[in-house]
Structures are given as C-alpha cells and as structure tokens.
C-alpha cells in the first residue's frame, strides 16, 4: 500500500533548482534508499515532504491525502517523522525529555504518558540512564536519541538523513540492525539517505538516485549501481 508519494515535485531557490520534477512512491514496510552526490537535493527532498520548506510546484500525497502545503507540525501529527543531518539535542532538556517532545506534541499525550512513551522508546533503542544530560551522550547514543525523537511522533513514514555519518563499523552495524528491527516491528516506511553504499546495500529494498535535483534512476541497489548514468553522476561528482 502506498504511504507517501510525490508527483513532479519541484523546488527552486532563487534560480537554482534543487529538486526537479521528482515523482516517487513509498510503500508500507519498505526501506527506501535515497542516494546521490553532495548537493544532489536529498536533504531538500526530505525537507519538502516533511513540510520544512514548501515546494515551488508539484504535489505530495500521504495516505491518499494532498499534503503539499500542509505545515510541518501537522504532517508530524499525521505520522511523518524525520531526523536531521545536523543533530541538535535540545539544551536544558534531559535525554528522556528530548524524546518526550514528539510524544507530547505530535501524539498529543499528557506529560506522564509522554514520559512513559519516551522511556519505552529509549529502552527499545538501547538507551539507558534516561535522565542524563544530552551533553554526556556518545555519538552512537546521540544518533539513537535522534531516531527515538522521530519515533516519538509515532510515525508511519520515517526519513533518516545520514544517521550513520561519524560512526565506526561496529556502531554502523548496530544501528543498521536497530533500524531494520524498528521498521519491521512498526511496519514503517523508511527513507534512508546515506553516502556509504555498503549501508544502502545492506539496509534498503530499493533506492532512488538524485542528481542535480533530478531523479535519474530507481530500483534495487544492485541494479541501480550498474546503471551507467548513476556511475557517471558519482564519478562526475567526485571529479
């Protein structure tokens, strides 16, 4: 069943077209890779579907409903969640309180219930000592907290923007397993942006490739990685 789809989605920043007529669809339970060279428009694409920026043209549908111009907080309440490439834990709030925010505002829970939800999420992700100051978290824990914060929205669609960046091999494996487990248990549709192709191969069912804002290829990773256009996009980006 299609959860989220876009049609000819276009985003222009004074002259620069960051996302150019992208059409895609994401199904329940699917883990979709979103790849492309630096500046391809991956983050912008996530910003568009999560409502952080409004598109110049095109259409976004969520569970059959047009959400193209819906504000971000309403999308969060409907079940779209995301993490950020640059993680910023909320200062003055403890680990569990950071996670509570989504439960309170996206799910509308009272403080007590929200706290229980957040504690459960922390446990699910293997975060202990939940009353800690966020300054004392390791990198892996910070990433997990970021995911827990997104899950606190009780989402049906989740976007992860480069969550693996900065992790070593063991930690990356740990996180891949965690994400897969969560996706299955919650029947989530997950969109994963990642530069490390090993992660994409291991984690995703299918990928879409963006280059200069355009969707240039789509399909299982092994197939897409042999696509000459994709290879050229990456080489061109590297050169």
């Amino acid at each position, binding site marked *: 069943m299609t959860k989220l789809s876009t049609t000819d989605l276009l985003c222009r920043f004074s002259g620069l077209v960051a996302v150019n007529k992208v059409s895609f669809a994401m199904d329940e339970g699917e883990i979709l890779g979103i790849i492309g060279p630096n500046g391809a428009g991956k983050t912008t694409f996530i910003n568009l579907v999560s409502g952080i920026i*409004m598109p110049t043209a095109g259409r976004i549908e969520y569970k059959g409903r047009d959400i193209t111009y819906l504000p971000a907080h309403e999308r969060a309440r409907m079940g779209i969640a995301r993490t950020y490439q640059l993680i910023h834990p909320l200062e003055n709030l403890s680990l569990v309180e950071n996670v509570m925010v989504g439960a309170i505002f996206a799910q509308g829970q009272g403080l007590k219930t929200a706290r229980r939800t957040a504690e459960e999420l922390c446990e699910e992700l293997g975060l202990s000592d939940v009353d800690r100051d966020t300054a004392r978290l390791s990198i892996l824990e910070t990433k997990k907290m970021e995911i827990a914060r997104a899950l606190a929205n009780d989402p049906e669609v989740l976007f992860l923007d480069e969550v693996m960046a900065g992790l070593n091999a063991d930690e990356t494996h740990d996180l891949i397993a965690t994400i897969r487990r969560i996706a299955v248990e919650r029947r989530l549709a997950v969109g994963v942006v990642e530069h490390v192709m090993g992660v994409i191969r291991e984690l995703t069912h299918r990928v879409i490739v963006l280059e200069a804002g355009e969707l240039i290829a789509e399909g299982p990773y092994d197939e897409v990685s042999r696509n000459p256009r994709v290879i050229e996009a990456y080489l061109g980006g590297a050169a």
Partner: protein
Amino acid sequence: MAAKQNGNKGKHMALKRRTAILAALAAAATVLILLWKPTVINNGLQQAGLYAAIAIPMGLVLGIVHIVNLAHGEFMMVAAYATYFACKALGMDPLFAVLPAAAVTALLGWVVFRLTIQRALKAPELNQLILTFGIAIALTQVVNILFTSQTYKIPLEYVSASIDIGENTFPVWSYVFVATAILYAVGLRLFLTRTTAGKAAVAVGQNPRGAAIVGIDVNRSYGLVFALALALVGAMGALFLTKSAIFPQVGSPYTMKSFCLVAMAGIGNIPGILGASVLLGLSEQLLRAFRETRAWADIVFFVLIIAVILGRSVSWRRKK
C-alpha cells in the same frame, strides 16, 4: 559553490528591485507634494539627510560586522557632548570640530569594540543585542551623571540661513546633512570597492571563515569597520550640534530610526538607506505641516518600520 553564487545573485537582484521600488515611490510622492506644499519638500529632504547620514554607518556595521548596534545614536550623542565642551573651552565653531570629533569617536569605538563587542561576536545574536543595549544605557547614564539632564545648545547665526522664493521662506542650512549623507554613501562605496582594507572588510562580511583562511585578520577588519562607522557618526555628532540642543537621551531615537531605515533598505544596501530616509523624512514633514496631524508625525516611523519589516518577513516565509 555555484549554488551560493546563484543565491547571492538572486538576493542582489531582489535588493535592486526593492531599491528601485522605494526610489520610485519616493519620487512620485515628492512630485505630488512639491506641487502642493513646497516647504514640506524642503524640510523633508533635510530631515531625510539627517536620518540617512546617521543610519548609513549603522548599515555599514550591520552589513559587515553583523551586529545591531543599539548604542549607535548614543555614540553620536557622546560626540556631540565632546564637541560642545571642546567648543566652549576653545571658543571655536562646531564645524571645525567635525574631524576631531570623528577621530575621538572612532577611537572610543575601537576601544569599546575591543573590550566588549569583539568578545561577544561568537555569542548568540541576542547576547550581542543585549550587550549593545547595555552600552547604550551606560553611555547615556555617564553623560547624565557628568552633565545632568540639562540641555545644551550652541547658538549659531548661519543655521538660520534661508532663501525666499515667492511667498515661501526656505531654510537651507540642514542641506549640510544631505551633502554629508551623499558623501558617506559615495565614499563608503569607493572605500569598499577600491581599497584593500575595504575589499577585505567586504570579504570578511560575506564569509568570515573563508576570509580568515586566506589570511585576513577578521577581528581587525571588524574593529576597523566599527571604528570607521563611529568616525562617521562622530562627525555627525558635531554637525548635529550646530542645529540641535543636546541632552543625554538625544541619541536614542536615532538608534531606532537608523535601524528602521537599514531594515527598510535591506541589510547591505547602503544606497537604499537614502531612499528610505527620503520616504521617512517626507512623510514626517508632511504630517508636521498640518496642525491636526502634527503630533502624529513621530508615529510615522513606527508604522513604517512595522509595515516594512512585516512585509519583508512575509515574503521571506513564502520563499522558504
């Protein structure tokens, strides 16, 4: 990289468009009023010159150091006081004090920058705002302690110079402010585009980290720009004294009005400040021209600032 340049270009065009619109509006209003109330034009332009000459240095600081200096008008006030007492002691005309006042204020600005603002450059923007607010209070109160709230004025004959045309009398002295404003705008443009120090300052303003990498001393550039801006404001302090009485709070409205004008023009757009000043000066003088509306002239500025800032922010949001 390409994206960034593109963005800048877009911004630049938007700035130009805004300046053009402001200029066109001002011109249209000017012609209409000129036909109907010629004194309003005369007073309005002079007023505009005063506003612009004070606002341009603030625009310079905001554009390059990225600091809203809430003590801006207060520095002018201090310069005016210094000029007053120097002139009293030496029996000289404030006009001769313009350059010394500029030098003294620049030095003061440099010291204040080094001691305070420079330390807060990396702090959140709001800390800087509060810091300069504190500096404004400190300056006002120091003057208040030293000279009480009494007003001081130097009576000068030439400030009442005027020209009679038909049945109207047009005072002309304040055109010195207009000349100063234009001089500032042109001079700054030349400084920022032609001199090494100016080019370095522009580079620092656009990208401090990049400028540091290519070996520009960022803090020195900031300090220089700040001191330069204060030199310009200091000179205005001496000129201001020719025309007006001074008291400790005399500078504070100019801080706000300057910020309003800079915001109207768009940060980094110095010629735009001239246009915005004309709009403000003319509207104020228009209201002053009628007894019923005279008292409301001071409010024009608030209406303008709110309208312009809001209008701008709405269009920003749409773009985002």
